[in-house]
């Protein structure tokens, strides 16, 4: 990626409509492909279908919450390599630690800025790219 931003496929799970909208607006001017899900169940289906480079997920969601979703992703060998970034209004230490225990690659606390979001995408999207890394599931 020389000079420009490499395109990443992103699945974003968030049940709050207004935050979904915010993310959509924030990523509108980037080359990334954004797939939005309103709950955990929908999120998992989307991840299986899209095979994203990076997953963002809220923790409080209907059906599967963020942690359950992360566990299910990590349990599937074909998905386990995808970095998961929790994005939550829970800011306490214990919650962040729990996120890492479930296999989260990073944690973003709400409210967050567009710059923070771009930074996470840049930092983690290349990791799972099969073209640039020879990962072991």
């Amino acid at each position, binding site marked *: 990626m020389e000079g420009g931003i490499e395109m990443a496929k992103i699945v974003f799970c968030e*049940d*709050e409509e*207004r*935050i979904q*909208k*915010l993310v959509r*607006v*924030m990523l509108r*001017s980037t080359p990334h492909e954004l797939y939005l899900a309103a*709950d955990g169940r929908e999120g998992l289906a989307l991840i299986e279908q899209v095979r994203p480079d990076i997953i963002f997920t*809220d*923790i*409080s*969601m*209907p*059906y599967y*919450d963020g942690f*359950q979703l992360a566990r299910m992703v990590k349990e599937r060998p074909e998905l386990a390599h995808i970095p998961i970034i929790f994005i939550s*209004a*829970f*800011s*306490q230490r214990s919650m962040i630690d729990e996120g890492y225990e479930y296999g989260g690659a990073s944690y973003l*606390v*709400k*409210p*967050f*800025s*567009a710059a923070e979001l771009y930074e996470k995408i840049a930092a983690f999207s290349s990791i799972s790219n099969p073209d640039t890394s020879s990962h072991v599931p």
Partner: protein
Amino acid sequence: MSKEGARKTGEQKTGEQQKQRRKPSTSVIEKVDRIHSQDELRIYRSLFVGMEQGVIVYDAEGRPVMANPVAAQILGIPMEQLMQRTPSDPAWRMLQEDGTPFPVDALPVVRSLRSGQLQAGIVVGVLNPKEKAYRWLLMNVIPSHPSRATRPDFVLMVFHDCTNEHQHLDILRSSEAQARSRLEELEAIFEVIADHVSVYDCNMHILHMGRVLREALELPEENLPESLDILVKDQSRILDEHGEPLPRDQWPTARILRGEVLKDANAVDIVVQRAEKHDVRFSITGAPLFDQYGHITGAVTISMDVTRRRMLEQRTQNALHAILSMAEAMVEERHDTGSLIAAFSEGENAESVDMVRRRLAEIPYHLLDCERVALLLLDPEAQTLEPMIIVGASPEQELQWRNRMQDITLHDIVMGNEALLKQLYQGEVIGLRPGASALKGSSLYRVVSPIMQGKQLIGLLVIGYATLKVRLEPDDLSIIQGIGRLAALLIAREKAQQERDQALQALRDANEELERLNRMKSNFVSIVSHEFRTALTGIQGFSEIMRDSELSAMEVKEYAADIHADARRLVRMINNMLDLDRLESGRLRLNLGWLDLNAIIIEVVNRLRQSAPKHHIRLRLAKALPIILGDRDKLTQVVVNLLNNAIKYSPGGGEIVIGSILEGSMIHVYVKDNGLGIPDDELERIFERYTRVETMGTRFIQGTGLGLPIVKEIVQLHGGEVWAESAVGEGSVFHFTVRYGPKSV
């Protein structure tokens, strides 16, 4: 000094005097008999003066005729006085040999003068006035008869000092008396010992059995068993001091027959166990008998019956042990409660209380010759007795006892005998025959001691005896009363402990409540911050975009509306928090007016329907609901909160029913959903502040947890109640009532 001097002279003389004692006297008599001429008289006089014996000559009337200087010296009287004293002169102080005063008639001189007989070898004690001490004289009185007349015309008293010999004699006599009494003692001792002594031959045949052993074993004197083996085989077993059977070769007699000497520290305690009779305990000492060749031919044993002594020793020891154990249990208990809350454990405490009670009951059990000891606690109001502890009963008996003692009254104990009841209340110990009490069920005689605290009866100490105690020994009575007092102290102590435990429990509860509130507060802070951060995400994000991006006027307007919506959400949350605070602190005043609850419900439903497209909200309102006096805004808030919850907690959509019913003076409103439901253990806490049902399934649901507490406060202000029913996975129904009747709000 003079006394000693005199004695020394006497001692020096002793040897010669004893040799000469009789012979010189005889020669003097012969000589005096033959005095005829003055010359001869002179010769005899010088002989008379030089004699080592004292000599006094009395005439027929007993008047002294002459005396030699030795006589005056021995008697300690000047010659002139001596010559004027008749034998019966009261100035003499004379003793017989046994120390009693000499009767005048018995004096040797007087006797001889009267009888004309020779008085020989008579011992007379005479007080020597110079020495102020008695001298003992060995005295002969020789009468002189003119021709053949019966009465003598004079007598010759010859004596010498035998004080020393007399003293020796005294010593001899007293030592003889001592020896005799020693012998008597020995005989007495032997007589007693003989009672204990038994003699066996080398085959343990009984040659002699001491009375004590025979009587202790209740054997007939005439028909003793032939040998120890027969005795044992017939009726008894021999056990060692610990109650273990003693093999024959370890019997004391067997050991003695092998040459052992059992005495002092080697004395052996044995127990003779007899069928249907009390065990008897003997302490046995003894030694083997030898013949002239040194072979053992038998054994002599001394058996002391120590049954009672050992029993008393054992009892004292047991009682001491029980007292120590009780003290230990009390000390241990104190250790337990050293740390105020940490070590507090109800179970352990009850156990140690039971232990102390048991130890207390064990003291009289060991000290008195009894079968059972029980402690009963009196409930002063119900007058019923509560069983505390029993000692001496098997576990089954104890269970029966505890059952029997349930709800038994003091009246039952004495079978309604008012006199006995009165005695108990006055602190007196009473006795009960078997069956004369509700304590029936066994055949024990009972002594019941009241346990008094001051003048109040607080319990009973019941001692059960197998046999009737006609009269309690004063010792036993004082033990029973002492234990009664100890029990009173124990009960008072338990009571204090109970109060302390309750205080501790209250403290612990308060502590737990504080901890719970603290957890709730942390929880609340976490929830509120989550809600604030969520609302702020939109506000911050959209305002950032508006700042940094080129937007169309339409976009600006749209995002501003988003920001505004989240800002309103924040305001609402803050208002809720403030409301609840005001409601709870009683600072919120209702803005009262007449209103129709059905109208409020319809208004709210219409408003919320738009924001819940997935849900089907149905109304089931009572017709013609009376109008009520209430706060329109607050009641609207109640309906909004309940309906919002129903929508939020049924994320899959579905039917929500809201209805109103008229019930007496109350209007009952309910909201029913088919949502996630609430677990039972959470259901009772959902109306508490800062509580939110946190499960995996509900964690996503937005909310501060303030909605239901606010509902509860508002409803209560309107004289109503709020409650919920729910089943996980099926949904919930929330109810509230509002009073419409005359009660002012």
